[in-house]
């Protein structure tokens, strides 16, 4: 059975249709394996070869990859949640109740989105600290470190703007506490708060603004910055690898 599947896949890879889609035959030589990476839109920003040391688990603990995968999970679950959500008060709260009692697997969908959001904040922090302790900010990686710091802020804002959307007591007061801090900014504090909330208190306008920030503006900013961040990893010569990695520690 397994042999049949393998044989079938091999025949499939030799067909005209397969080659027309992937622009190559089976990836069975280093040449075709290279084409598999740089001939693929979604992989072309990766190097064709990676250092063996950079693949060791302790080189990265895959913290950056995990952060990105969480971003993907959040995009998918977030889009699904958008089908059931109205950014208006108090409809938003009723939509939460609908997710709970009406929508099939609605609670599961929301659980997954929330879990991934908290995990992403945690993983981005962990990624930053790990990169720091490995000296990953050193030349020529300086600018990519700065992009990473901005991505941390974007992640925090994404999570924070999403926090308001259920429109329950938890959401309302968490955001009230947070936005009150903005007023402490000298001179422009109250103006910035007004801009963010669309009013002086957390109300329906604030909900709409946070929604637009959460589902359009911030994800787009994150998407572009993640692209730059990944591309720069390759352009700057790959992961920072320590000498001592080769002999055990």
């Amino acid at each position, binding site marked *: 059975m397994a042999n049949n599947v393998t044989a079938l896949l091999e025949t499939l890879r030799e067909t005209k249709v397969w080659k027309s889609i992937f622009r190559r035959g089976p990836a069975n030589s280093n040449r075709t394996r290279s084409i598999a990476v740089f001939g693929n839109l979604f992989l072309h920003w990766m190097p064709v070869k990676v250092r063996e040391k950079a693949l060791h688990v302790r080189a990265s603990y*895959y913290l950056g990859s995990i952060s990105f*995968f969480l971003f993907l999970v959040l995009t998918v679950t977030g889009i699904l949640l958008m089908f059931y959500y109205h950014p208006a008060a108090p409809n938003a709260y009723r939509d939460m109740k609908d997710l709970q009692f009406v929508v099939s697997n609605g609670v599961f969908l929301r659980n997954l989105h929330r879990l991934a959001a908290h995990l992403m904040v945690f993983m981005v922090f962990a990624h930053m600290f790990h990169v720091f*302790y490995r000296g990953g900010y050193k*030349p020529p990686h300086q600018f990519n470190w700065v992009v990473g710091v901005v991505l941390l802020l974007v992640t925090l804002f994404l999570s924070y703007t999403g926090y308001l959307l259920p429109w329950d*007591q938890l959401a309302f*007061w968490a955001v009230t506490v947070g936005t009150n801090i903005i007023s402490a900014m000298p001179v422009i504090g109250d103006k910035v708060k007004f801009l963010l909330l669309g009013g002086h208190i957390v109300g329906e306008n604030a909900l709409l603004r946070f929604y637009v920030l959460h589902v359009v503006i911030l994800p787009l900013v994150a998407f572009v910055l993640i692209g730059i961040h990944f591309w720069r990893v390759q352009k700057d010569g790959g992961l920072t690898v320590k000498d001592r990695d080769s002999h055990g520690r």
Partner: protein
Amino acid sequence: MEDKKIEAGFSSDAKKDPRRVVFVTKKVSAKVVGDRGPQLMTYPHLLLREAIVFEVLVIVMIVVALFWDAPLEQLANPLLTPNPAKAPWYFLGLQELLHFFPPFVAGILIPTLVVLALVVIPYFNVNVEGKPLWADRPAQNLRMVLISTIVLLFFLAFFDAWTILVPTAIVASILIFSYTARQQTSGWQSALAAKPFSWWVMTWFIAASVCLTVVGTFFRGPGWSWIWPWRTHVG
């Protein structure tokens, strides 16, 4: 005049005509790529590992999401303030700071300084070189460390900010202890003594942030008073 003319072309006698091929200064030395070591093809070696990480992550998350429900409280009510009103967990460190310092300092000044400090890390040579703190002029550095620690501790004590004071004091004592181990050549003490200045600052920052966040999340009750998380609310 004839002998001063510069001749084009290569000389085969390197002893007679030494020529500088490349000049590596201290500043560019970090960029010089040495032996990159053995390499593997991205396809399949890296992509396979990434796929495994992704699958494990998704499986774990699905299992957790099946059993751990996202909280949903009552409908938002501007007239009913919960006590305490708490921000999301990653801002509770800041909220804990707000308890000690005026809003401008805790909410604006400190976060701005933290972000700026993070951004400029790679642009300071002291961080790039990463020399051990006790490598050059150890006595002078120790004096600086002692003075700034004492000033900082007094400052924090003045504001009763002991949730920062405790991690600061712990990290500072380990730092000062590492001074005594600077002559050692092996063991964890010598590894500690070999840490650069930036390592200590980052470790202090993480220790303080974790302490603030944990206290803000689990140990703060009504009116931001101290509570024990295992005690349920009595009245």
